[in-house]
């Protein structure tokens, strides 16, 4: 036997049609928690992991985006096909696990047979057999295995029944591969469509042979009726009935907007109790730290820099989690494909595609996966335009900013009104993205140059009751990513901003006679800030901020938000030295914001006009370096991210100027 080298760890690749259960299976085998969604096209990049240790199989496992055939039609499918034939790092797979939905075998066998024809070593895993059983049918893996001449097993993706058999087969096949080497494969080619049509004919025959009815004592006559046309026996009638409603001319649109607005309004009020808890905790901690450490620089660093800075952002994490939770429910129910279908026509008028819907929707969580999700759009021009406008969809990093600013506008915790304002902000973001997309589509020569066939072909998966464990898994994964991405930046910047606004004038001399101790502290901190490094930096920013009716302190916060948008909140919290006697972090931020005056005047700094201006700024400004880099990576050119930064940040400034001064002109200060 040949000695094993380091990179001879065998590679097992999961391949299958979209939504057939690849990622679900991948998670079982690897012990990871990748996102699974009831939408064809949820995975858009490959991921690799070792098999779980407890299975005792030394192999790398690769999950790939769903493909319909071995001839790719969109970038996500290209990823899969490339990983099959020429993966730069892992080479060809030793073994393929091909998933196929057993309720639609005649379609899903196409890919299996193409794989076998190209010479791959394949184990076929039939998923969704629970759904088949529910309709009183079953599938014979033995017969299918004979007909296809490869291993076939059933696996229930909901509880993992059948996993043992699969592991056994993997082991046998890998040993086989060690003995005989990697299988010889040829790239799959098609000159015309007649082989495809023939393959479908044969697959239908196979399907007829392997699917059989399970005798049911009760519903036999009904089942007989359903069997009249074999190819239609599996259609889920409930799904079609629900769709009659959700795709209806009027009800459908109503439903669409109802679902969208419920999503965003509930973010605000559902999260409130949890937010209060986090808020109180941090308020208490900050006061406690200050009280026990006294009036020292490290007391200020801990209470004002760390606790208030980080706490002011963490307060909003419950809202973000609720947002992820609701998006997760939508994703697992099967509605996403309907949303895409509903708005395909309107979106195609402005140069987008119905398939832009899912990327746009996931943009509410984060622009980075959203931009990657645009890979499912086969038309390059539509894909680039989708990538272009995604930064206008308000991501969860903006949620803390909006929530704080809304808290300023809507006092005494009117959560209902807060929710409505938040929903309007989101809708305003969507409308802006649509308008900008329409404009760019019209004058596209500069930014988009491609023009190929535009198409919309999408499977509408059956509706399913969202599975709690799946939704929670997705939410936790999302929240983890969020904290991992934003956490370190917020921590580092909180300390940096604290230092810039504390030194060098850290112990200012003030006339303390006749002042209460509280006044002394507040006078001291404003003196300290006025002589700080950030004030010196602020002088450069001041001229840009004056037309917006704001001063350098907001400017510094806006600049720091370019590292991560949430930093705006912690920066405000630190610059305005929020720690007062109040036991609640958020209300003390708002309190100091209400009292803040533009330096050198006695004009209030934060007014409804400037707050609305700031909201407008955050809707438009592209302040996220990761977005810029992913936009470059996915579009393959610097042109797109460059225009994004220039146009969106330019618009942000102009629209903020118009908002603030326009409101003042009509008497709203």
């Amino acid at each position: 036997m040949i000695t094993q080298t380091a990179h001879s760890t065998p590679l097992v690749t999961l391949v299958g049609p979209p939504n057939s259960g690849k990622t679900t299976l991948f998670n079982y085998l690897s012990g990871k928690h990748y996102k699974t969604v009831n939408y064809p096209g949820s995975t858009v990049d490959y991921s690799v992991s070792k098999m779980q240790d407890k299975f005792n199989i030394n192999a790398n496992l690769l999950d790939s985006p769903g493909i319909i055939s071995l001839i790719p039609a969109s970038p996500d499918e290209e990823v899969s096909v490339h990983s099959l034939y020429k993966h730069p790092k892992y080479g060809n797979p030793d073994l393929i696990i091909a998933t196929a939905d057993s309720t639609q075998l005649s379609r899903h066998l196409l890919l299996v047979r193409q794989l076998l024809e190209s010479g791959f070593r394949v184990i076929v895993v039939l998923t969704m057999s629970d759904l088949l059983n529910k309709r009183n049918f079953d599938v014979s893996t033995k017969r299918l295995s004979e007909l296809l001449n490869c291993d076939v097993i059933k696996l229930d993706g909901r509880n993992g029944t059948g996993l043992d058999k699969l592991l056994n087969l993997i082991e046998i096949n890998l040993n086989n591969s060690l003995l005989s080497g990697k299988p010889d494969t040829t790239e799959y080619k098609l000159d015309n469509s007649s082989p495809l049509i023939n393959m479908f004919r044969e697959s239908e025959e196979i399907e007829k042979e392997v699917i059989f009815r399970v005798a049911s004592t009760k519903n036999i006559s009904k089942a007989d009726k359903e069997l009249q046309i074999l190819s239609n026996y599996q259609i889920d009638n409930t799904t079609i009935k629900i769709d009659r409603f959700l795709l209806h001319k009027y009800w459908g649109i109503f439903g669409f907007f109802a679902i969208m607005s419920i999503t965003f309004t509930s973010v605000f009020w559902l999260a409130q109790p949890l937010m209060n808890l986090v808020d109180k905790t941090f308020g208490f901690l900050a006061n406690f730290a200050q009280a026990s450490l006294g009036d020292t620089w490290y007391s200020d660093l801990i209470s004002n820099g760390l606790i208030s800075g980080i706490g002011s952002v963490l307060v909003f994490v419950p809202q973000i989690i609720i947002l992820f939770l609701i998006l997760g429910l939508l994703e697992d129910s099967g509605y996403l494909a309907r949303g895409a279908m509903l708005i395909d026509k309107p979106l195609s008028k402005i140069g987008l595609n119905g398939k832009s819907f899912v990327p746009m929707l996931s943009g509410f969580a984060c622009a980075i996966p959203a931009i990657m999700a645009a890979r499912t759009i086969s038309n390059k021009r539509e894909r680039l335009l989708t990538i272009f406008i995604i930064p206008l969809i308000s991501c969860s990093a903006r949620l803390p900013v909006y929530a704080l600013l809304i808290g300023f506008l809507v006092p005494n915790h009117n959560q209902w009104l807060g929710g409505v304002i938040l929903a309007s902000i989101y809708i305003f973001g969507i409308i802006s993205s649509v308008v900008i997309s329409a404009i760019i589509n019209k004058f596209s020569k500069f930014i988009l140059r491609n023009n190929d066939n535009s198409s919309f072909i999408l499977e509408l998966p059956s509706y399913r009751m969202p599975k709690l464990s799946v939704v929670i898994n997705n939410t936790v994964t999302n929240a983890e990513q969020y904290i991992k991405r934003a956490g370190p930046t917020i921590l580092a910047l909180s300390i940096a901003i604290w230092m810039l606004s504390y030194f060098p004038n850290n112990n200012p001399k003030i006339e303390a006679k006749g002042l209460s101790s509280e006044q002394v502290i507040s006078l001291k901190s404003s003196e300290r800030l006025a002589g700080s490094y950030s004030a010196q930096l602020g002088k450069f920013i001041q001229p840009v901020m004056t037309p917006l009716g704001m001063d350098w302190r907001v400017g510094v916060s806006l600049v720091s938000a370019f590292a991560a948008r949430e930093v705006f909140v912690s920066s405000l919290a630190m610059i305005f030295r929020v720690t007062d006697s109040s036991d609640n972090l958020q209300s003390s931020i708002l309190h100091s914001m209400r009292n803040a005056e533009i330096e050198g005047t006695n004009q209030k700094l934060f007014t409804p006009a400037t707050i609305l201006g700031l909201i407008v700024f955050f809707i438009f400004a592209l302040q996220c370096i990761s977005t810029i880099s992913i936009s470059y990576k996915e579009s393959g050119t610097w042109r797109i991210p460059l225009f994004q930064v220039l146009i969106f940040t330019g618009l942000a400034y102009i629209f903020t100027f118009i908002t603030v001064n326009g409101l003042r002109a009509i008497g709203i200060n």
Partner: protein
Amino acid sequence: MRKASDIGFGEKAVISDIDTSHPSSRRIIEIGFTPGQEIELVNKSIFNDPLAFALRGTVIAIRKREADCIIII
């Protein structure tokens, strides 16, 4: 010559041919619209486009323009 885009709501028809000069035709075939296959128009989106066809155990939405390349008996 009738096309899948001419089918009425809830109507069933059998595909007789696919117009392979259409740029989406390969994908249309790959996803399961093949000659001899029975399809049913189960739903339409607002503006009557895209159309949702039931076939081979699932429902597939395609644009009207794409349904044009599916010729039915």
